[in-house]
């Protein structure tokens, strides 16, 4: 995608978003250290990073370099051992567990390599899930579910269970679910890792469309073709951000 598209998307993000260049994500000297027995694993090692609202960033790097760890920290699923994280101007460290859950619920959408759909539930129920836990009124949910499924081209498949869908379709259900609470950030951990290249391309195209509508997207990937769609590529090695 061209620079122009990204800029347009940022401009179109509406009045709630401040001017272009304002960081929706800001990490300052963030480390995440796992204690494994006697030894320590520095999964994130002094990472500083700013991601602007409406940006489309790819994270690349070898296995074990800390990409998922960083994504989890960004998504408030994991908390840094040290350093500070400002999400949309709000300091994340020190927030209670419930408040972190609320942040995830309202501001962040996740998609995963293995889709993480609940197997016993239909596509529609899976998409409805975040609203159920947010206590959204039942009569408001159906329409939103249908709209989200149609937006990913799965309107007619609403009542299929995951095992009746292809990999690409499953990931599209996961995207519909990630978007149903209208988050401002979408975090994707190798979303095309389990897909053939055509389905993968469809998923990336979908993410780009969402990005153009103003969504901030951070995608972890091993695939340079996928990363090529991002305006910005972050490279990690041994828990460090080595190059942008």
């Amino acid at each position, binding site marked *: 995608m061209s620079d122009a598209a990204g800029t347009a998307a940022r401009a179109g993000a509406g009045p709630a978003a401040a001017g272009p260049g304002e960081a929706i994500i800001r990490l300052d000297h963030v480390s995440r250290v796992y204690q494994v027995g006697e030894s320590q694993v520095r999964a994130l090692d002094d990472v500083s990073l700013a991601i602007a609202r409406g940006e489309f960033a790819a994270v690349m790097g070898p296995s074990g370099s800390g990409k998922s760890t960083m994504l989890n920290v960004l998504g408030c699923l994991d908390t840094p051992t040290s350093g500070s994280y400002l999400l949309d101007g709000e300091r994340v460290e020190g927030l209670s567990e*419930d408040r972190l859950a609320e942040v995830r619920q309202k501001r962040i959408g996740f998609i995963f390599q293995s889709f993480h759909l609940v197997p016993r539930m239909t596509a529609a129920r899976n998409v409805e899930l975040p609203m*159920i836990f947010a206590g959204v009124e039942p009569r408001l949910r159906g329409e939103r579910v249908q709209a989200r499924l149609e937006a990913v081209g799965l309107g007619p498949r609403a009542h299929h269970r995951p095992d009746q869908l292809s990999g690409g379709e499953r990931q599209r259900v996961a995207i519909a679910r990630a978007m149903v609470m209208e988050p401002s950030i979408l975090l994707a951990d190798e979303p095309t890792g389990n897909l053939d290249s055509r389905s993968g391309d469809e998923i990336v195209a979908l993410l780009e469309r969402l990005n153009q509508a103003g969504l901030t997207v951070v995608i972890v990937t091993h695939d340079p073709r996928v990363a090529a769609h991002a305006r910005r590529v972050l490279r990690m090695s041994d828990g460090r951000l080595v190059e942008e």
Partner: protein
Amino acid sequence: MRRRDLTAFAFQTLTLHRLRTGLTLAAIAIGVTAVMLLTALGDAAKAYVVREFAGVGTNLVIVVPGRTETSGGMPSFGGTTRDLTLEDVLAVARQCPAVRRATPMSMGTAPAEYGGRSRDIRVIGTTSEFADVRKLAMESGEYLPPGDPRQGEHVVVLGTKVARELFQGENPLGKTLRVGEWRLRVIGVLAAKGISLGIDYDDQVQVPVSVGLKMFDQSGLFRILAEAVNPQAVPIAQREMRAVLTRRHDDEEDFTLITQNAMLQTFGAVIDALTGGLAGIAAISLAVAGIGIMNVMLVSVSERTGEVGLLKALGARRRQILQVFLVEALMLSGGGALAGIVVGLIAIAIAGGIWTFIPLRASPIWIGVVLVLAMGAGVSFGILPARRAAALDAADALRGRH
């Protein structure tokens, strides 16, 4: 999270593993049914005993030879126990103002024979007052005549069954019945009464107490029955009788006074303890079923680690995860309990239809208790797995690491 969503969520999970869910429900249901049946049985036994003892009469005081530590229990024989004598009966009748009448009772079994037909029969020796105290009515003829209890005539009063079986339709009045070595003239036949205080009044004969004692070569009475002037006077009568008899027995209380209340209390307590014990045993099966719930829930939690991670990523609070799993455990225990109650009610209805003499009835109190117990088992055994799920680290759970 809305209650309906919570139950729908749990329901969906439970219906996924039909066999597992079904077996867990069955385990709970069996426990609940067991508790219901056993408590119904206990309650029925108690009702039965109460019904039996209600026939004793509320103003009756019974004197039994021998001393027991707790009043109302069965007397323990042994030691220096003086006989209860006819003089004791007369003294009670004369010296206790709260006692309206007193009557002796001896007891033995002897062969009775008429017209070549013979059988062993229970022989009660007593006085004319016995008919009033035990509320006996006559079918024909007369009851034992009043008079000095020490000099009874050689007469006998028959229970209806004895009359029927030995006399085969012949009118027994005026006939001579051989009882043991004795030849007794039949003077009356009792109206049917059935069993009361453990004695089948249709299947026994009654003779004057002096005859009864001699027949079996007994020196002491089996019982003294005394009737207080009214039910309120029973404690006073008891006190007076204790004083009179103790004085007559060289200042030793070597007898036991029993009242209907005391008997009801004693038997009621015994049966309550029995029922409680049975219910306790049945409750163990509930606890076992509870462990079954815990096991199923633990399996469920470890199977669904990834799902828990996902729910957390989607913004589910710790408390909500806890609720999801707890409601599942509650639905298992509640569903099992309801099934068990239905089966229990049906079983009790069927058993009550077959054994009509037992007043089998499911008590609402026990149903409530067992329901609470089952749900309690669900919560207490469900809380550990639910806590474990709620405490999962979201990032680890999503990675499938836990």
